[in-house]
């Protein structure tokens, strides 16, 4: 019974989201309609089971004990209490079970969908969006939604059902009594809403204070060297003490709200109960109702009133749920990148790339590339050189269609780039970044990350060897199974880069984009990386974002970018002959060497 049995229902959440809030929520939970109904019925059964016990009590008192007209014996009556409890238990169990199936099912679907959605959102979106904010939305807000769509909805249903069932039950005893028993209910509800609204405000203040305290603590711990260096321990203790006291005061205030709410609502409920007891008692005394009816009534009245106290909390929680829903919906509204769109997928590509009058600008009109035209032959290496902001990176980002160019055309093997599906392009393009991102899993998994097929151990080791990282990996405690990151080894920049190279080698793309930065690496490893890179560049069309002249001297084509345009292109030999930016750069490099020589000579 404890084994969950999750059934997947595929569902495009983005599609169901219209403009109105409520219809959108309903559309989102629609496929769970039957479960909601089932859970509500189960709640009803549970309520009936519990209320029936009061009727059983009435029968026991009136018919069995007092009037002695009972047709059943004592034992069946006693066992009926057990039976009714069982029915009640079954009802409450199934309502609990179905509620969790609704809330967790909805949440799982939402989580999966959001995860997939986020990884399909355009690169530009991720560039602009704060990671912490996104995480907040997919965790806390999703969790608030979980409570809202599952527990809160069912809790409200439960409160209403309990009320209806018990109200009718009292009505069956005596309708006048029923009517007189619910007078205080609007008051209870109003008081409850009033208090919980206030409580939720005070709670926000309290949480703010708590956050401030955490920040102070966190800053103190992070800045422990500064604190010690200035000998500011006392000062820090005072500062923390003040925040600590603020939090204390806020905590007491929050507590006081509760201290008022519970007794106040207790009193209101008690007034209703005492009044009910009095009226009921007098009715029993007059013979309007039987003694058994009175006793049944004294049980039922609690079930009408007390659940109502929670309505305020439920309503405040639900309003929070709505806010979270909006925040999640903001993400869902952003259109995905159509990965499979395109009609041209050859068996193999050659790697010939041509840019024709390419212009690219961001949505805000900010121009990044203008009138870019060049041709890269298959297997050639193309070096891009230029200052920060000249557009190098954007240019190469157009190839895997991370960005869509605004004007002009790019062809791959003579076919328009837009005809290739993005997924196809990315499969055939490898990227080695300056600061490669590795996943916190084993080195083995990281190297194999780029290929979906099964990779043999030999293949993987071969790739690692070619990337000049195999020997390094063997020195790690668990070899290829060593975890990368916090829980395992911390790799240096150069090691990360070589793991990324191995990853790319295994993927074996026809086109390669490489950020050629070896500056963060010790001199010894620089040669290793260079060798690894040369290995990688063989037989591939390679785009190199160059940082040093030395690394582009052998390039088949050098593009010099300045202010969003290509200002010069050609081979190293051609470019040094020309007047222009390239020669300036080259001259500066030479000049630096001259300067250095002079520096050193001056010392000697």
């Amino acid at each position: 019974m404890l084994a969950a049995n999750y059934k997947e229902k595929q569902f495009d959440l983005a599609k169901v989201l219209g403009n109105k809030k409520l219809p959108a929520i309903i559309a989102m939970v629609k496929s769970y309609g039957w479960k909601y109904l089932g859970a509500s019925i189960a709640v009803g059964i549970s309520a009936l089971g519990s209320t029936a016990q009061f009727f059983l009590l009435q029968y026991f008192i009136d018919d069995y004990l007092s009037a002695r007209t009972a047709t059943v014996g004592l034992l069946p009556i006693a066992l009926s209490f057990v039976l009714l409890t069982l029915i009640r238990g079954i009802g409450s169990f199934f309502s609990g079970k179905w509620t969790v199936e609704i809330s967790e099912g909805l949440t799982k679907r939402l989580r999966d969908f959001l995860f997939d959605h986020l990884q399909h959102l355009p690169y530009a979106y991720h560039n602009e969006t704060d990671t912490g904010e996104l995480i907040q939305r997919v965790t806390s807000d999703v969790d608030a939604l979980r409570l809202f769509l599952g527990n809160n909805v069912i809790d409200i249903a439960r409160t209403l059902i309990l009320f209806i069932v018990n109200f009718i039950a009292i009505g069956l005893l005596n309708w006048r009594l029923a009517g007189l028993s619910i007078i205080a209910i609007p008051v209870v509800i109003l008081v409850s809403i009033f208090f919980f609204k206030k409580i939720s405000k005070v709670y926000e203040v309290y949480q703010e204070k708590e956050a401030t305290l955490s920040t102070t603590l966190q800053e103190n711990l992070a800045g422990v060297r500064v604190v010690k260096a200035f000998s500011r321990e006392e000062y820090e203790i005072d500062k923390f003490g003040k925040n600590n006291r603020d939090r204390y005061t806020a905590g007491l205030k929050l507590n006081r709200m509760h201290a008022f709410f519970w007794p106040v609502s207790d009193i209101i409920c008690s007034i209703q109960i005492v009044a009910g007891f009095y009226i009921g008692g007098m009715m029993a005394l007059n013979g309007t109702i039987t003694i058994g009816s009175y006793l049944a009534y004294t049980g039922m009245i609690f079930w009408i009133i007390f659940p109502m106290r929670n309505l305020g909390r439920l309503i405040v929680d639900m309003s929070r749920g709505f806010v979270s829903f909006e925040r999640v919906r903001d993400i869902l509204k952003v259109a995905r990148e159509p990965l499979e769109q395109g009609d041209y997928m050859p068996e193999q590509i050659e790697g010939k790339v041509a840019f024709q009058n390419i212009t690219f600008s961001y949505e805000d009109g900010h121009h990044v590339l203008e009138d870019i035209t060049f041709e890269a032959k298959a297997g050639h290496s193309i070096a891009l050189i230029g200052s920060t902001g000249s557009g190098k990176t954007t240019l190469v980002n157009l190839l895997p269609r991370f960005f869509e160019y605004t004007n002009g055309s790019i062809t791959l093997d003579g076919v328009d780039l837009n005809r290739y599906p993005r997924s196809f392009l990315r499969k055939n393009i490898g990227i080695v970044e300056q600061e490669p991102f590795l996943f916190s899993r084993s080195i083995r998994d990281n190297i194999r990350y780029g290929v979906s097929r099964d990779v043999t151990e030999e293949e993987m080791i071969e790739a690692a060897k070619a990337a000049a990282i195999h020997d390094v990996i063997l020195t790690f405690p668990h070899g290829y199974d060593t975890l990368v990151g916090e829980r395992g080894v911390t790799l240096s920049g150069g090691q990360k880069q070589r793991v990324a190279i191995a990853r790319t080698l295994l993927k074996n793309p026809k086109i390669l984009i490489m950020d050629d930065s070896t500056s963060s690496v010790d001199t010894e490893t620089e040669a290793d990386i260079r060798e690894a890179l040369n290995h990688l560049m063989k037989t591939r069309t390679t785009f190199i974002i160059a940082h040093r002249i030395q690394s582009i001297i052998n390039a088949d084509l050098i593009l010099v970018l300045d202010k969003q345009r290509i200002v010069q292109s050609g081979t190293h030999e051609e470019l040094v002959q020309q007047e222009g930016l390239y020669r300036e750069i080259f001259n500066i490099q030479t000049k630096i060497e001259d300067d250095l020589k002079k520096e050193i000579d001056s010392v000697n």
Partner: protein
Amino acid sequence: MSTNYFEEEEFTTTFNGQTFLRLVKELKPVWFYLAGILISIGFTSVFDSLFTYLNKLLVDDGILAGDPSQIRLNLIRYGVLALLQAVFVFAFIVLAGIVGEKVQLSLRQRLFSHLQKLSLSYYSVTPVGWIMSRVTSDVNRVANLLTWGVIDVSWGILNIIAATIFMLIINWRMALVVVFSIPILIVVAIKFRTSILKQYRQVRKQNSVITGQYNEMITGVRVIKALGREQGSLQEFRKESLTMYNSSYRAAVLSALFLPTIQLISSFILAGVVYYAGWQFDNLPGGITIGSIQAFMNYVTFMMWPIFDMARIFAEMQLAVASGERIFSLLDSVPAVQDADTAYDPGSIKGDIIFDNVTFWYDDDEEKLPVLKHFSLQVKQGETIALVGPTGGGKTTTVNLLARFYEPKEGEIRINGKNYRDYTLHGIHSRLGIVLQTPHLFSGTIMENIRYGRLDATDDEIIDAAKLAGAHQFISDLPKQYEEEVGEGGNLLSVGQKQLLSLARAILADPEIFIMDEATSSVDTMTEALIQKGMDRLLQSCTSFVIAHRLSTIKSADRILVIEDGQIQEMGTHAELIRKNGKYYQLYTKQFRQEKEAAYNLLTDDVTPVAAD
């Protein structure tokens, strides 16, 4: 220390009585409030049982006896008691709030004060997150146990006792039947609670796995896209989210079973009561009244709730005691660097500094591999020393030892002829100026951050310091100038600006020894020049140690140390070392090229230093 030590929410499986006693002692300062709580709780739970009894009187003496005055009388009693109870409820909620908050206030403050005493060696092996959890969630949990735990348990116990007494008064035979079945309920309830709690811990663990996956996907989205791994990573995520579904499901279903199970067990007791009462009613005329039967049924039905609550507390107690253990372990940890009993404030730490055959290893290194080996160095008052060399060579350790964040394992460091352990920590630290590689600022205004260097400084003195540090210019350009907020950790400012502020802070402190770890990340040329100016001011007036990354700093030092493998490999002035054509020569030429390339800003956008820490 094993890595397990830092695993969140690790259970101690055995109940630690000593820790529990120590926790109870925390209540000593608030015993007065606690007494108030217990009294209020006592009345509240007795009243709860009385209500049922009054109802019995109303039925038997009022309705059945046909006496309306008895109905009124008992309802007036009922109403008065309800009002009184509301007062007691108010009292115990307020008092519990006070006790809980006071316990938290005091524990937090003590933890924080103790943390200020602990040495850097503690911080280097203890993750910030771990410490944060001790001060926040563990304190919360302990306070919860000491207030609501105490309340629920005493309410539960008193409630059961009061109900038992009333039942005994009404009909002792039947009462005994009920009393003997209570332990069964308690045992089942505790068992249930414990497994539910375990399930929810599983859920929380899985929840952090899910968050981790989101985090990795979002930060690595470019790689996922570039490698076309969307399908694969979704598959992996689905697996985790299914595990999350399953464990949440198990936890919720277990919870859903809990109440019905307890109710079912107590319904057997109820059935017993009904049967026995019916039998008594039939066979012993006058043995039991209808009101009594009703009262009994009520007591049995409501006895479930205190048992429910107590089971929860017992299950959570184990966790709270484990929290207490961790809190006390922090409070009991001894600072590695402390003042000796005879330590004194030297009044000044000007003078020569001598590293005499210093060897040092970090405590968390089980093999005790020395980071500094027989390191000796003599520095004259007022000298500027530049430290260069590869990462992990020992530069940072050298300045950490000098600042007495750590102390030598072998050998000694002498300041002005005396072992620096003879001085108080405060005596040394208050005369140090330190500028870190990644400058650390505190939330607050610029003014407050500079004032950190000297708390009694006037605003004018602060502005002067900012001017000397070259920070005044950029501050004046800010909308609120010195009153501008710097944000959490100073993250509203650029790295260069933060560095200028931390220089101003150090200048204001007017130190006698100055330690600087130059930033490796790039700042624009203007800021760079300003930083240089600010530094010069300090370098002139102090004995200075600079972990240097910039050529200008290195060249202008009185002496350059190339530190590698925990030893001084080369030492001398710039000219001497260049002539030597050794390690320094290599470092220098490489840095020269990179710095110049960056200066021309043609190919690269960041400077990479000689060696980055």
